[in-house]
């Protein structure tokens, strides 16, 4: 997994590449999000459009990041969900929890 960080209009965008699975460093996202919160960056957009595979641990990792950011008074939203990730979130009712976008501009404007 690789994570690139960029900023647009006060929103930190994490471009995640590769797999978010238990053996593939899913904790990297958590660590990156924690570092952002510590530096006061609380508006975070996770771009998952280049994520090839997510398992249940990866879904749990997204949930964990969401609650960590929310508890700090921030907002974590999702961008570019693949159909498979959408299904995984939908059947566990997590699409009702996460705010997700297909269009990056709309996602940034939503903060």
């Amino acid at each position: 997994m690789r994570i690139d960080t960029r900023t647009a209009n006060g929103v930190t965008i994490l471009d995640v590449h590769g797999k978010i699975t238990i053996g593939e460093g899913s904790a990297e996202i958590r660590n990156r999000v924690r570092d952002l919160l510590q530096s006061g960056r609380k508006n975070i957009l996770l771009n998952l459009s280049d994520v090839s595979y997510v398992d249940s641990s990866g879904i749990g990792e997204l949930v964990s990041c969401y609650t960590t950011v929310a508890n700090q008074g921030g907002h974590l939203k999702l961008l570019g969900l693949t159909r498979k990730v959408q299904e995984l979130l939908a059947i566990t009712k997590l699409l009702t929890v996460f705010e997700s976008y297909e269009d990056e501009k709309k996602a940034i404007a939503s903060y």
Partner: protein
Amino acid sequence: MRKCDIEISLASELRYLDVIQGVSDSITRMLELDDDTRYWVGMSVRESVTNAILHGNKMDEGKRVWVRFNLAPESLVIYVRDEGAGFDESKLPDPLDPKNLLRPSGRGIFYIRTFMDDVRYTILPEGGMEVRMEKRVNHKVKGDQEGEANAN
């Protein structure tokens, strides 16, 4: 297709998850399952082996996980067995319960139950836990579709 078994034994290391998922993908491709079904069966195998390594064998590399694919004309049955103490499935928290929605774990078995047609957990008398996952194979549908295409 004639009935046959493919059995694999692996050490309790997470790096083997890609290997076992690759085996699942090869078998479901051989069975000519559609792309979505292959994806979800592969994920169910991966989740089951993850549970066996993590929760069953507690990451003890000296303990093994056995995965058996039983291929038959009408179904694919997959068994995943570990050397752990097992668990009471009825005591697992419901991940859809509003109070559990934001829990970081506890969704793997729910996903397996969603994607497979029949799932059964058994604590084995000789020790260890085994999950039996069945995916029914409907080759008739494929034949029917070809027949319709030919008729048109």
